[in-house]
């Protein structure tokens, strides 16, 4: 861990003034916001992140940590802890996919620490990224290559990957948020703005060191999940080797609006599978107007994985993802 200047922001405007060195997720950003610290401190100890300035935004929780459900939808303050959102009874009842994605993530202790904003911005678990002794990592050192492509890649992405990076987005909440068409409220030195969650993360696109569309200094302050008839019939299914406290090897956030057995609307997010939070919109479309049968679910799931690219150890992933989507759809429809 390199030395840094520690500063604590008392409010949003102080934070935005101090946080101008934060970037768009770049590993070499000179400043980092410290909320729960569960990703940041870990990666600083590993010498991956080397900020010169840490800006503690814990104090912003009072203003940006609320969780509310209104007629318009669910408002999740980005400084709320994962635990607060996971345990919120109304979130569990009305947005089960959101609550489940949080409950199935990390551990009780980490959920007590981590903020929702920090959680959706967490870094990949790619071992080649997390250890600077590997020279080839385009995400950490732009232009250096990707050691994972020919390396150990059992839990690397098969969707949204390119020759520059096959790292996997490790989060769960982000998968639920993208499926449920959430919006993100962002505060920044140039003012506040609202963007679709789907446009928060950037594709690899040959420059995986740039991870978000945030501008330097910007802070996530809220997530808004719009009210929709499918929210209550949503779920998050997480497949992993051990029963808890593990990142997904495949996951699906699905939501359905049914008319009898006929699908009126469907939403499908994929986790443990893609470079970034992933929504299978075309697969969703295939289900609309059709009965929710095994074969229709299988067709949609197959379509969701049609562009998968595998690299050896992760050859199993497309098939596992198809099965995960089918199971999630059938369970949500039950």
């Amino acid at each position, binding site marked *: 861990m390199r030395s840094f200047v520690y500063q604590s922001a008392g409010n949003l405007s102080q934070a935005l003034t101090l946080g101008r060195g934060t970037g768009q997720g770049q590993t070499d950003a000179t400043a980092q916001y410290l909320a729960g610290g569960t990703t940041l401190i870990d990666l600083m100890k590993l010498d991956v992140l080397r900020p010169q300035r840490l800006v503690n935004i814990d104090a912003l929780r009072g203003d940006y940590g609320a969780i509310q459900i209104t007629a318009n939808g669910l408002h999740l303050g980005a400084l709320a802890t994962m635990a607060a959102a996971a345990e919120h009874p109304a979130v569990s009842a009305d947005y089960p996919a959101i609550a489940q994605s949080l409950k199935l993530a990390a551990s009780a202790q980490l959920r007590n620490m981590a903020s929702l904003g920090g959680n959706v911005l967490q870094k990949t678990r790619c071992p080649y990224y997390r250890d600077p002794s590997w020279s080839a990592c385009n995400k950490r050192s732009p232009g250096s290559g990707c*050691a994972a492509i020919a390396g*150990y890649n059992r839990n690397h992405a098969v969707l949204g990957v390119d020759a520059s990076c096959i790292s996997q987005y490790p989060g769960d909440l982000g998968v639920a948020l993208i499926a449920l068409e959430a919006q993100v409220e962002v505060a920044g030195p140039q003012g506040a703005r609202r963007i679709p969650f789907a446009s928060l993360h950037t594709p690899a696109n040959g420059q995986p060191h740039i991870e978000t569309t945030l501008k330097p200094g910007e802070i996530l302050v809220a997530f808004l999940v719009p009210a929709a008839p499918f929210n209550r019939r949503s779920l998050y299914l997480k*497949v*992993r*080797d*051990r*029963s*808890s*406290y593990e990142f997904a090897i495949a996951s699906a956030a699905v939501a359905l609006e049914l008319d009898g057995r006929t699908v009126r609307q469907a939403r499908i997010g994929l986790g443990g599978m893609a470079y970034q939070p992933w929504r299978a919109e075309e697969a969703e479309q295939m289900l609309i107007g059709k009965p929710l049968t095994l074969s229709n679910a299988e067709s949609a799931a197959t379509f969701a994985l049609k562009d998968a690219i595998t690299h050896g150890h992760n050859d199993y992933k497309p098939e596992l993802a198809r*099965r995960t989507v089918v199971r999630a759809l059938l369970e949500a429809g039950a």
Partner: protein
Amino acid sequence: MQDNINLFGKPTPRVDGIAKVTGAARFSSDERVLNPAYAYLVTSTIARGRISAFKLDRAKAVAGVLDIFTHENIGGETKTDTGPDGHPSTTSLESDRVWYDGQIIGIVVAETYEAAREAAHKVEVLYAPETPSATISSAGTETEPHKPERQPDPNKGDAQGAFAGAAVKLDAQYGTPSQHHNPIELFTVTCAWDGPKLTIHEPSQFMWGTKASVAKQLKIDPDHVRAISRYVGGAFGSKGPNPRTAWIAIAARHVRRPVKLVPTRDQGFSIATYRAQTRQHVKLGAASDGKLVSLSHEGWELTSRPSGYNVAGVGSTARMYACPNIATAVNVVHADRNTPGFMRAPPETPYMFGLESAMDELAYALKMDPIELRRVNDTQTDPVSGLPFSSRSLMQCFDQAAAQFGWARRNAEPASMRDGDWMVGYGCATACYPSNIGPAAVRVALTPKGKAFVGLAGHEIGTGAYTVVAITAARALGLDIKDVTVHLGDSELPPIMIAGGSNNAASASNAVVKACEELRRRIAEAAVRAGDSPLHGADASTLKMAAGKLIGPADRQEPLHIAVARTGQHLEAYAENIPQGLPPTAVADMSKGKTAMLGGSARKDVTAYAFGAHFVEVRVHSRTREIRVARVVSAFAAGTIINPTTAHSQFMSGAIWGLSSALLEKTELDEDTARYVNDNLADYLLPVNADVPSVEIIMVQEKDTQVNPLGVKGIGEIGIVGMNAAVANAIFHATGKRVRDLPIRAENLLEG
């Protein structure tokens, strides 16, 4: 003596329980030393080659750095010790040679941990790398037959010919992965010098071995070395004497301050040992009634370039079942890896996976119940040597566990049992472990107030050693356990063999009983001589100590404190127990770090093993194929159980390790660079609480008059043995898919 010992002692809570639940128990890195400097290791990032140069300027510029040690400035300061098994092993800071990824190549010492870490990250190393070999299947490995150490590999009759003529045959290849112990306590060490004397705080499962090894490496008098390790935060074979300690001692000598090293979790993967990857070839031939006519088992084990380390588990698998024709062989495969070492049931965990998977496959080929296949091949005679087993209660274990498990409910047809969306499978397998005993010495003191103090350089690695020693002494002296204080984990105390091979309970308890008997003799002889004693004139050999009294014939007795006081103020006995068959110098040899154990098939009179049987129910999701264990019933017969409370925990722990070995644990490598890639606890998967279902442990009564005077068999390791096979067998039963390489994960079951 046997008649005085209950097969099951009274369940007793751990005497160190309060220390452990309050945080008062001091593990090595909890020990306070004056003004420590902090070390941080620099480890190699190539697996094979040489170090061309270090560039240390930026590291040395970090405020607080005291010094940086590499082969360039301290390389000549040790004499390299052999590996844990006596084989030559890799070196670390001795030279510019890099043997494996993660080798210690530098030590940064600084005023603070934070400064040492920052500086270590700023050390620059220039290498001349060579292409490494990572695993058994990699290009560039070197394979050779192992060198059998104590006895030849079991071979008997004509296994090949008998196999050719067998009515039913099974011929299959199995694989087990590299696995790391990952005790939750890190591989810490603190070294402090006081003039010529060195104190080491390091978790150790061989106190006198650590002392001897460090003295040898530093070329100093062993009497000047004191190793302290009152509590060990999990060992499982990983915390024996090692090359790290001496280097930290050298660093401390240079900076003239105590140096404390708390290495990182990922460094623990390469600075300590691990369980080696194996490949195995098993051939079983049986008559149509299931009786084995041929058993062949050949293994290939990974090791480092210089070390011949191997575990040769065929020594156990060849003895499991009656079979007239046996062929075994073991090969070592040298790769550019750190040297492997002992890990919980080192030979049996991998090799019994092969044998017990093959037995299950054979049972299906025979259309026979797998329990019945074991029954028709059960034997009370070691099939290799012809010696009797000291005791063998294998089928009692199978029968009791099967009844408890409800094995009768099993439909033998694979993929035939369902519970909703989950496919259900039952599996079983044999567990075994050699019953070892080693030399031990102990000092027992008894005060006139009736308080006993027991001291030996024993090892509390979670086995309940403090409690086992306290129970044994309390029973032998007729005291309440509260009146017994036990001191372990200090090399100033008398030696005991390495806590390995599950020997320590047998070794310690038999020595403690000897010392207590010596105290009894002295007290009794003083009493019968004393005119004022009600026991005056009695036969000293008949006097017993019980309930705080010295008791003779016809209700003649006196309070123990009076009897003790009569002998003088300080009553203390020292005893050594050297099991018959070990050299008479076995206790003295421990001061040289030598290990010696007797048990298993190494004895001339009997073959000594404990046996057990595992039953497991697994569930595999019919769609996504996650594998979950629903319940476990395991039965073990292991002679005298000194403390059923801690014994139960040991058996249960072993069984859970077996589940984990089957389903979760694998150390993954980057094949091209031979580097570990899942060297952390998020990616190297240990089971969590939610993984562990109901685990029922049955302790089967077994009286063994031959294994050792107290009839104690080791219990720390047997629990893991065979469970990996039981799980694989259950997965086959659930799905119809036979997986012969561990671990078994969803991706192995996705077809169909």
